[in-house]
């Protein structure tokens, strides 16, 4: 059980890393949201599952319930996280932020050369 949860945990951390690196590396606001919105959610899912599993190692009603609570967090995040992402995107659209596309950079490059 410990091993499983450790693996899950490491996977989760990996996803988190991806999210963090993603929001640094991505070129524009919209594309940054992809790692931020998805990878973090996945990371939470993984780590929480890991913790929930680890928590079950001494099995009793109390630990089951706390594991369930952890799952509740995940469930909750699965509703709120995309909604929040959507809200941010929506804000960006309404604020008039144009999405970055390849054509633009190409044109810029053409102009530069």
């Amino acid at each position, binding site marked *: 059980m410990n091993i499983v949860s450790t693996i899950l945990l490491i996977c989760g951390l*990996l*996803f988190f890393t*991806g999210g963090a*690196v*993603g929001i640094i*590396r*991505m*070129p*524009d606001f*919209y*594309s940054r*949201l*992809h*790692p931020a*919105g*998805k*990878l973090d*959610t*996945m990371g939470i*899912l993984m780590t929480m599952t890991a913790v929930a599993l680890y928590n079950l190692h001494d099995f009793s*009603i*109390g630990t089951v*319930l*706390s594991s*369930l*609570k952890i799952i*509740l967090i995940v469930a909750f995040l*699965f*509703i709120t996280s*995309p*909604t929040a*992402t*959507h809200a941010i*995107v*929506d804000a960006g*659209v309404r604020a008039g932020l144009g*999405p*970055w*596309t*390849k054509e633009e950079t190409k044109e810029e490059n053409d102009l530069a050369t």
Partner: protein
Amino acid sequence: MVDREKQYSHQKQSQPESNQSSLKIPPTKKSRTPFLLTFFVAFATWIVLSGKFDLFHLTLGIISCLIVASFSGDLMLSDTRKKGLPYQWLLFIQYLPWLLYQVFLANIHVMYLVFHPKMMELIDPRIIRFKSRLNREMSHLIFANSITLTPGTITVFVSIYGDYAVHAIDEKCGQSLPGEMEKRVAKILGE
């Protein structure tokens, strides 16, 4: 003094002529079902949260659930139709593993993109527009959030008439929409 003007142009754009069914507002009827449903769902959640089964805490739980149900019973399940509720839940639970799988795939894909040294060449963000045939709020929610969670796509805009604008990180991601996901979501809520 009444000054009529249409203000929000994109509102107008996204307003289809054909969709006559939504012109009628369903009359709100006082029903006790949302109350009871909320109460039971809330009580189940309470049990999970509380973890104490003595009489005192259960009483507190019942009181709390009553408060929640009476105060916001009409929020969660405002347009629930009576028939087939348990069945819908079952379908929803069926839907979850598929969704998780999709989410996982999506994440792998995004991870790949993020860590790829030539990321800038791989990605090709674009906005895709399509129309969905879903017409219930809840199904829109599930569908939109699923889109956001799955491969390289984020829901940018949904109108009440089912027009979707989706930001996709590369071309491949956007192709599958609405596709299978819409069908599955529609199936859950019986549309």
